[in-house]
């Protein structure tokens, strides 16, 4: 279900909407006014940026209403013996010395993404996922998990006879970096009745050649595990 529809539905019941956009922001066109959510969190390292930095967007009315979550330099307006008042937004939430280097780096990341163009990024990733999906579908031992309309830039799969952690190690040796495990959704894995899954994801820097390498390396797993 698209986030905008979820937001509209929740708002119609008076529910505040907080979106974890860490996975969405690098791959989708974002318009906070259009989405109308109350909060939206992003993780900079997932947007070609530095680690250790994130951004929390929040509607002004909530940010004004909420108390600061931590104290420190720069977030105070006035401190008296019996009362305290906080600085204006965003200072109220930016206690202490900020991660200056990361902030400057992230600014460059956004400029980089804008220079490529989010439409181009989306098209590039959709093309790659479609190519990868076709490729892996032809690979008999591979079982792809999920193929919804408007699929994101990921290919989740299992390989008959090889545990995802063994797949990840072998692929890594072949220079193909994927993730294996529960991917923060253990409940879904229980429902699918699989112990774990392997997941390849694509970004600006990937090419069809990379997906060919992924497929070749999956075949290497089969070879190492003596599978047909």
């Amino acid at each position, binding site marked *: 279900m698209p986030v905008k529809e979820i937001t509209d539905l929740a708002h119609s019941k008076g529910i505040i909407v907080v979106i974890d956009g860490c996975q969405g922001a690098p791959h989708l066109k974002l318009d906070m006014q259009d989405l109308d959510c109350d909060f939206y969190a992003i993780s900079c390292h997932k947007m070609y940026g530095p680690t250790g930095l994130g951004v929390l967007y929040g509607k002004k009315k909530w940010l004004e209403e909420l108390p600061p979550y931590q104290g420190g330099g720069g977030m105070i307006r006035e401190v008296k013996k019996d009362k305290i008042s906080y600085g204006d937004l965003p200072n109220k939430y930016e206690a202490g010395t900020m991660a200056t280097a990361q902030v400057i780096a992230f600014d460059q990341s956004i400029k980089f993404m804008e220079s490529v163009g989010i439409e181009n990024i989306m098209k590039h990733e959709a093309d790659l996922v479609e190519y990868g999906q076709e490729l892996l579908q032809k690979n008999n031992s591979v079982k792809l998990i999920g193929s919804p309309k408007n699929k994101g830039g990921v290919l989740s799969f299992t390989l008959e006879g090889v545990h995802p952690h063994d797949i990840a190690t072998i692929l890594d040796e072949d220079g193909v970096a994927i993730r294996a495990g529960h991917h923060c959704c253990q409940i879904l894995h229980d429902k699918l009745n699989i*112990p*774990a899954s392997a997941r390849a994801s694509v970004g600006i820097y990937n090419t069809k050649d990379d997906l060919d390498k992924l497929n070749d390396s999956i075949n290497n797993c089969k070879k190492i595990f003596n599978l047909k």
Partner: protein
Amino acid sequence: MNLKELYQEIILEHGKNPRNLGKTHEFNKDAKGHNPLCGDNVHVYLKLNGQKIVEDISFEGSGCAISMASASIMTDLIKGKNEHEAKEIVEDFLGMIKENPELKCEYLKEDEKTKLMCLSGVKQYPMRVKCATLSWHTFVSALDNSEETAKTE
């Protein structure tokens, strides 16, 4: 780094057909082990007799080839050893998988050492060390009657 060293035939074979898999009938000690990072679960059952000898040992669980093979080989080697010997073997194994170039324990026969050394390829893959050690930590928990779920950290 060498994948052939990690995935030796004996590892693949034990991974595919683990020995002592299941719940042994008359166990008097058991413990569970869990590795939250990779989702591996293992349950070790053993029967320690009056002479403190591990008369029977088995495990239940699912996981990657390394974790299954390690549990399988462990149960094979531990069966018949007494509590003191078993603990020395565990220490020796954990030392080898992390840093020591070879096994030193006097309670392991040469062919047992050779079998166990098949897991030594794991030390080149730090991410996979916990796969190989979970069942061993769990075995110690069972011996010590630990109520807590065993971890590798």
